[in-house]
């Protein structure tokens, strides 16, 4: 094969890019994002950078791709009944205001000339907190299960902060039918406002913070947290795509190539949630957060190659894990279906 067959010219960024690499990145992030309910900018941006995109183009291209990919995943999650649109819309307001304040804080720090290290260490601090929360929650739920303490239809639970927060009785009280709870509208608005501030401050989409917040603070079942968060990522991603394009930092050809891979990955990641237990998703999410945290620490100390290795290693391992869940689950479902059909046919005869 000719060398040029494998390389695609990107007219705006002015670089030649190995296109199967783009498809692979799209596929991986589609799989992981569909399973965890996050955009995955922390995975795509370094990947694009490694393939040869200048950093500014990597960020803009990444955001546009995330918007399209989240759209595909949201459509699939919606069919499973995993998206609470009412909750998503209510949270959107808090997110927008929060991002604004977070961004203003960044501008203030920028004027002081301290933006880089402060942001990175705040990011690391939050990631450490989230990963600790996820693993501690699992440990507590496991202990509760062993002790036979199973409450309601959620089964054994670890951290149940949302129960205390649901007692806040400030009107209007809103019932979220898909998520299956009633709470003060100010709870999701407040939580999304805080996660929005952090997202704006850290310069990220926010899925990494919003997904655990939906589970631990708002009380969403894990599957619905994943679907609803993807809906939020889709809206903010489309907006981000528009503004980054206005800045001229987007490579549309790359977005489309990545989306093609992401379409397949998103189906696998989303359908895999059907066969995974809520806590299985949470634990894998915790591992992803740890990988993200380690890579940022390595970057902070200038060990960029190792940081990329950690990110790419985590992406590969998570992809293999999710794909195996999907195929094992699908095979078992088809086997059961065939057996049921055979039994029904035998009964009729």
């Amino acid at each position, binding site marked *: 094969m000719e060398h040029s067959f494998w390389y695609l010219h990107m*007219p*705006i960024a002015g670089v030649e890019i190995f296109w199967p690499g783009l498809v692979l990145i799209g596929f991986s992030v589609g799989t992981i994002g569909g399973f965890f309910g996050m955009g995955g900018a922390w995975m795509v941006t370094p990947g694009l950078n490694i393939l040869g995109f200048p950093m500014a183009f990597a960020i803009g291209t990444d955001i546009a791709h995330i918007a399209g990919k989240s759209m595909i995943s949201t459509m699939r999650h919606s069919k499973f009944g995993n998206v609470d649109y009412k909750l998503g819309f209510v949270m959107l*307001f808090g997110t927008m205001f929060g991002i*604004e304040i977070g961004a203003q804080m960044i501008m203030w720090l920028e004027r002081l000339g301290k933006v880089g290290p402060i942001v990175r260490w705040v990011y690391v601090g939050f990631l450490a907190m989230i990963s600790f929360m996820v693993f501690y929650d699992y440990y507590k739920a496991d202990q509760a299960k062993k002790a036979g303490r199973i409450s309601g239809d959620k089964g054994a639970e670890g951290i149940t902060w949302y129960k205390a927060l649901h007692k806040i009785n400030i009107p209007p009280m809103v019932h979220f039918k898909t998520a299956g709870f009633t709470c003060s509208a100010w709870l999701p608005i407040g939580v999304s406002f805080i996660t929005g501030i952090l997202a704006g401050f850290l310069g990220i989409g926010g899925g990494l913070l919003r997904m655990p917040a939906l589970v631990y603070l708002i009380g969403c*079942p894990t599957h619905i947290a994943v679907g609803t968060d993807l809906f939020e990522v889709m809206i903010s991603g489309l907006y981000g795509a528009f503004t*980054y*394009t206005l800045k*001229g930092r987007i490579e549309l050809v790359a977005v*489309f190539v990545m989306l093609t891979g992401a379409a397949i990955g998103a189906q696998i990641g989303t*359908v895999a949630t059907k066969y995974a237990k809520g806590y299985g998703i949470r634990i894998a999410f915790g591992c992803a957060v740890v990988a993200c945290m380690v890579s940022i620490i390595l970057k902070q100390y200038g060990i960029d190659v190792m940081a990329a290795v950690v990110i790419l290693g985590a992406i590969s391992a998570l992809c293999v894990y999710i794909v195996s869940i999907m195929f094992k689950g699908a095979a078992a479902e088809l086997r059961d279906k065939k057996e049921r059909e055979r039994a029904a046919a035998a009964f009729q005869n």
Partner: protein
Amino acid sequence: MRALFRRILAFCSVISVLVPAAVWAAGEKAAMLVVVADTRRVTSDIGKYFADLYNTNMWLFAVWAVVLTAGYGVFLGFSMDIIMSRTGLDLKSRKIIEH
């Protein structure tokens, strides 16, 4: 109280449309750099149109970028839906098991 909530929602909607420009203004300062798409190496007519648009009318290019990304996302979503429905898997229901 409901009326108040509705008013707050309406206010938030307006603000969420007006405010975001400031949000993204806080992004990186790479916009100082002028990037020009190299149309000399683009062979297809469509590619040339978009490369020219990038160089001449960034606003229209941004609108196209969002519309095409969303449109392609929806197209892929529906296409994959057709393919997935042929696998025989139940794609409309799932049990939520947390632990």
